[in-house]
């Protein structure tokens, strides 16, 4: 379980997370929605330890991410997929995927690369296994990014707007992979602006507004009168649908 409780985070004078509580259990797909600047990315970055929180507590399977010793354990349990892919440009797709298993989990290189090829096959990239990121399209890069996270066999996937740098065609190729992962019971925290997609794969929707979680509801309820009863949510949804 990922447990976020009473988390506060400021950058200088700006409070970005203002007391956030959120729990993600195994098997859930939680979409985090909210307008630009509401703190979604910051929340993800606090969970994977890229940002230090000012107050509160975040644990991943009980490991406290603010304690350096426990952070490394927490990080073994969660895999992050980035908006801009963040691939290592000097490594091929296979090498990108195998790096962390080899270095962190001490998997023999041969085995790690075989597993990497298998993952690439599952996302339809068998032929591009030896390609460098610069030789891949955006959608292909993001599929490599997803494989790289999956290679660590994480209990949780953290995804921050993983399709927003992609054109519609590439977006759908990445989303179909995520939908397949959701179906197999992969636990995901999914920050997105793809409302309809979030609705189709999520078990729950968390809505951030100015650093506060103003809604945390099962998907069906969020998109029903219950969600719409919250003015900020109604406003957000109508605006997103117009775009």
């Amino acid at each position, binding site marked *: 379980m990922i447990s976020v409780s009473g988390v506060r985070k400021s950058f200088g004078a700006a409070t970005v997370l203002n007391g956030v509580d959120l729990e993600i259990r195994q098997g859930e797909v939680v979409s985090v929605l909210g307008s630009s600047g509401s703190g979604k990315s910051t929340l993800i970055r606090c969970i*994977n*330890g*890229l940002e230090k929180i000012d107050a509160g507590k975040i644990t991943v399977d009980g490991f406290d991410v603010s304690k350096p010793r426990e952070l*490394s354990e927490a*990080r*073994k349990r*969660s*895999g*992050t997929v*980035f908006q*801009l892919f*963040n*691939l*290592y*440009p*000097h*490594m091929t797709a296979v090498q990108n995927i195998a*790096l*962390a298993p080899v*270095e*962190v989990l001490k998997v023999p290189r041969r085995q790690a690369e075989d597993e990497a090829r298998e993952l690439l096959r599952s996302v339809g990239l068998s032929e591009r296994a030896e390609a*460098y990121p*610069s*030789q891949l399209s955006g959608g292909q890069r993001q599929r490599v990014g997803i494989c*790289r*996270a999956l290679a*660590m066999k994480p209990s949780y996937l953290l995804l921050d707007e993983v399709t927003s740098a992609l054109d519609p065609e590439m977006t759908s190729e990445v989303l179909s992979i995520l939908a397949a992962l959701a179906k197999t019971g992969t636990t995901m925290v999914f920050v997105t602006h793809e409302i309809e997609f979030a609705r189709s794969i999520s078990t729950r929707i968390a809505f951030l507004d100015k650093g506060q979680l103003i809604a945390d509801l099962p998907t069906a309820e969020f998109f029903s009168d219950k969600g719409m009863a919250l003015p900020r949510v109604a406003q957000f949804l109508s605006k997103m649908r117009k775009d």
Partner: protein
Amino acid sequence: MRYGDFTPFDIVLLLQGLGVSLALFVSTTLIGLVIGTIWAVIRFYRVPVLTQIVTFVAELLKNSPVLVQLFLVFFGLPAFFKINVTPTEAAVITLSGNSAAFIYVIAVSAIESVGKDQLEAARVFGLTRWQILRRVIAPQAAAFAIGPLTGLLVNQLQVTSLISVIGVMDLTKVGNILNLRTLKPFIVWTAVGALYYLTAKLVAYAGGRFEKRLRAHTAWRGL
């Protein structure tokens, strides 16, 4: 020996001088690479105190003439510490230090050239700082650094000629001797210059070849 005569042996003399210059160049480059890289790693880890010392020393070495440094090592150290410093030792110490300082500067900017986003990716997947340095930063930093490094080394090769003033028998010193003996400066210095030129070209060529290999992954950029 009479004035004015070149002998076949002069070729050997020139080649010996070239050998000395090359030996000094290669050894001080290697020492400079090791030290400069270690300094850059110290800075990467932000080791307190040491980082400041390294930055300060590199600044001193970069901003004072090599010749002055050479005199300080050759004449200053023996006078101050009452130790014996041979011309070769002084040459090795001075040129290594000087190369180290400039290599440090190149290494620091090469490390900083690596995109922060990949480093964040490596961190969240649990790689240690050392693993990130070795697997993610070093290969890309090397590809970045090889161009400036080649330029630096071509220059450092020429700088080795300064050591002739303290009596090291390098190529320039040999040229000096031949010049005094034959009084044919044009021929002597043309020959010496040509040897430096060819060696410099060789260094540049090797650097270029190496760069191509290190940058294999960027050859496709733009597709």
